[in-house]
């Protein structure tokens, strides 16, 4: 699993609002760093890493919810949740297919056709998920969501993403 990015400048005596901006923006950039790899679809671990990061982001948003106006918070959280859920559907199928493939040698010959049929069905469903993922990111791109999200965080926490400069841990 991809390591969580360190949050720059986060100190024990931080203000809640400042911590909110730093943690959320770091998790946001961390999640988006896996977008291109997820869209290429060559390595299922990229999608997995993006989903894990999206869950970290959601958790951070939940934790720091009181720093934001409820209405706009719900609107932004809904989009992040959409990312997690869309990636989750694909990831669940990846995990199921891998699990069944591992299980196959342990099954008796008369049980194997059923498992092979199930794997085939999940593979078909998985191919359909790729289209949902591409459509979601195309829509977010069109809406300019990334820039809007970063502006929204800055306006309520005072933390600017360019100055924070989130980056992956060394060695990743």
């Amino acid at each position, binding site marked *: 699993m991809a390591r969580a990015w360190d949050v720059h400048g986060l100190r024990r005596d931080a*203000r*809640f609002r400042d911590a909110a901006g730093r943690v959320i923006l770091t998790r946001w950039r961390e999640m988006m760093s896996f977008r291109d790899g997820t869209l290429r679809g060559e390595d299922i671990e990229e999608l997995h890493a993006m989903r894990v990061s999206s869950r970290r982001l959601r958790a951070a948003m939940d934790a720091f919810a009181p720093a934001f106006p409820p209405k706009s918070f719900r609107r932004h959280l809904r989009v992040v949740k959409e990312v997690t859920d869309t990636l989750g559907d694909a990831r669940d199928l990846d995990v199921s297919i891998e699990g069944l493939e591992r299980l196959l040698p342990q099954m008796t010959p008369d*049980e194997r056709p*059923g498992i092979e049929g*199930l794997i085939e069905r999940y593979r078909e469903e998985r191919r359909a998920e790729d289209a949902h993922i591409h459509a979601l990111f195309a829509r977010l791109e069109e809406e300019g969501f990334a820039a809007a999200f970063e502006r929204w965080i800055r306006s309520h926490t005072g933390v600017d993403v360019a100055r924070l400069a989130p980056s992956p841990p060394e060695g990743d």
Partner: protein
Amino acid sequence: MAKPRPVRGVKPGARLAPNARRILAVRIDEVFEHDRAVRDPAHVTELHDTRICFKRLRYLLEIFGIAFRADLEPFLEEVKAMQDLLGDIHDRDVQVPMLEEHLRWLEDREADAMQAVVAGAAARRRRAGPPVDEEAAFRRFRARLDGARRGDERPGVLALIARRRRERDELYARFLVEWEGLHESRFRERLEAAVGIRR
């Protein structure tokens, strides 16, 4: 899914630690909210909700850990172990109905395919009249019918359902032991003391 309870009294302009303490107090409480219900293996929803509560608590400990002097890493490990165990139980609770649905899907596909074979045979008969060799025609019809059957896929799916149910029983038995262990080791009291929550 259980919605997190609202946390009152958080002051965004104040320091992280006192706010984190308020939030953690509520989230720790939520973990033990279904203490009685989760002792019954049939309470699938409460088990799932408890998993979500552990997950929220885990992320909060990771996020707010910096605000406290105490080392929260051992608590994180305990929380993660419970989250993983409940996650494995939840996977089985989701997989079994999905596999049962797959069985129904196989039956529907089989019914559709057989209907197509019968309709095809009837159409041919209407077009060309009764076949000269009825027996050969019946053999062909039967071969097409057998080809449309998905019966050979069922034993594997049924075996998988049985396996997942068995695993679920084993995982739940382990969960009960771990859950009791949390109480016996006074997990809640230890964690609350570590982050300075006074009840």
